[in-house]
């Protein structure tokens, strides 16, 4: 049997399938389908220092091959997570990644420091959320701001630090290199592309927030390209995500340069998708006589 376990920045995940932040809540709802230990890990819903109400509805719009969301980081705050969700999550036998977002660098640092005392396996820095300092532009869209927030958090973070990159940029490779230099232990990519839909009956944007984040299969080729580009610029491991919905997509993402993957939007149409992917991946490894999932990482032979 092929080895599915992978190591990301010193943390071992029993398989390379991790639930993507914001699509899996804190795991409670999905245990109806299978034990959470089925997954390599869970990246929890994005946390902020204080509770956040999120954006007004509608928050969801469908797009061809994808969807938009403008949930806006609705969450109960980091303390509530530590008190109410984390103890339970830790008992589920899966890797736990805390995904954090802030309005200010100080917020990020405070959360990283607080979570460093708790039994989370990894901290994922979401630097691609809207509504942050710098006149609304996200930290994740320039090398300088991405590097500065990473190094600030690095100083407060005792856990392995994974930085989650935004795809709304011209040079993803540059940003990946910048966060590596600034001390990131791993990179996860990609977050959502910004999109919009309009209701032609009401002539209003479908989302009350006007725009939202595009996720789902439509995103896959962009995510693959970006992971491939970033992986040639950094040595730290990359967790690939964006539109993965079949086991073949998982294999593609690993080949492109990812050491593990995150699974998001597909869970909404098929909550069992990770179970099917795991099976497909195992069969692929065996049929192709590949000893371990880790051996696929970056093994695309580019032209």
């Amino acid at each position, binding site marked *: 049997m092929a080895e599915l376990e992978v190591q990301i920045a010193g943390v071992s995940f029993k398989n390379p399938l991790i639930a993507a932040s914001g*699509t899996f809540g804190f795991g409670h709802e999905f245990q109806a389908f299978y034990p959470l230990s089925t997954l390599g890990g869970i990246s929890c819903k994005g946390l902020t220092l204080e509770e956040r109400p999120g954006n007004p*509805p509608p928050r969801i719009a*469908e797009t061809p091959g994808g969807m938009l969301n403008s949930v806006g980081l609705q969450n109960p705050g980091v303390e509530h997570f530590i008190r109410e969700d984390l103890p339970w999550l830790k008992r589920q036998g899966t890797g736990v990644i805390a995904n954090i977002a802030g309005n200010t660098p100080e917020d990020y640092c405070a959360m990283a420091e607080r979570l460093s005392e708790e039994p989370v396996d990894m901290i994922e820095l979401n630097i691609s959320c809207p509504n942050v300092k710098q006149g609304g532009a996200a930290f994740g869209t320039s090398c300088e701001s991405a590097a500065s927030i990473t190094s600030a958090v690095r100083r407060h973070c005792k856990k392995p630090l994974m930085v989650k990159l935004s795809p709304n940029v011209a040079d993803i490779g540059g940003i990946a290199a910048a966060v590596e230099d600034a001390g990131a232990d791993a990179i996860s990519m990609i977050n959502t592309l910004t999109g919009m839909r309009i209701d032609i009956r009401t002539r209003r944007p479908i989302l009350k927030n006007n725009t939202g984040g595009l996720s789902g299969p439509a995103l896959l080729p962009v995510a693959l390209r970006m992971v491939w580009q970033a992986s040639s610029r950094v040595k730290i491991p990359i967790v690939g995500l964006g539109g993965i919905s079949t086991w073949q997509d998982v294999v593609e993402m690993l080949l492109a340069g990812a050491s593990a993957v995150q699974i998001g939007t597909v869970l909404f149409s098929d909550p069992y998708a990770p179970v099917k992917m795991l099976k497909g991946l195992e069969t692929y490894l065996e049929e192709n006589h590949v000893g371990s999932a880790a051996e696929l990482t970056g093994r695309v032979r580019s032209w």
Partner: protein
Amino acid sequence: MKPYDTFDCAVLQNRELAPGFFDLTVSCLQAAQTARAGQFAQLMVPGKTLRRPISICEIDRNQGTLRFVFGVRGGGTLQLSRLKAGDQVNLLAPLGNGFNLGDTSRRVLLAGGGIGVPPLLEAAKPFGKRAVLTAGFRSRDAVILKEDFEKLGCGVRIATDDGSFGHHGLVTDLVEDIPFDVVFACGPKPMLRAVAALAHRRGVPCFVSMEERMACGIGACLGCAIQLQGENGPYYGHVCKDGPVFPAETIVWEE
């Protein structure tokens, strides 16, 4: 027993009830055992990223079937309207809280607007003669499920927007002289608001079934937010998990 699960279901029947309104019955043994009135299912539409939330209109525990009645609104419901007996459809069900039917010896007012009428049918069953349906539709063409409620022994009063059938006007116009102890309502927001106000004036509990655009359907994505009245002011609850049925007084009708 899982609280909800995905099921590949055989379509037993799908027929056009009224122009653009479809009546779909599927075989779903497990969900039919646990489903309750007012709950909903997320129906998979091949090729679409998101499932479509549709209320459960009837539950037949003996046959192990679920009935859905839906209107064609866009591409997803159009595809669902083309399902034929023998086809398969994948359901995520049963979802949401449903109507808490409570003491079924009470007199219930069922207030429905258009495609909000279907979920009231299963709720009507235990009340029978003690239920009155007041339902509003666009026009005579769009009147659905009237006979189904009559068969249960319910009183039925219909209003249409254009007066082509029953009362020319609003659902709330029909209620004046009806006595009731509890209200279950489903339909467009302005109607629900008016019904809630009416129930409030009479001092009668009112439960409304709400809609919002959904992704997961199970409370994980926080997509289907709805503003609710909380102890410390308004907050965003979620239609799929906290609802779709809410006590009317918890709804923030205007944001």
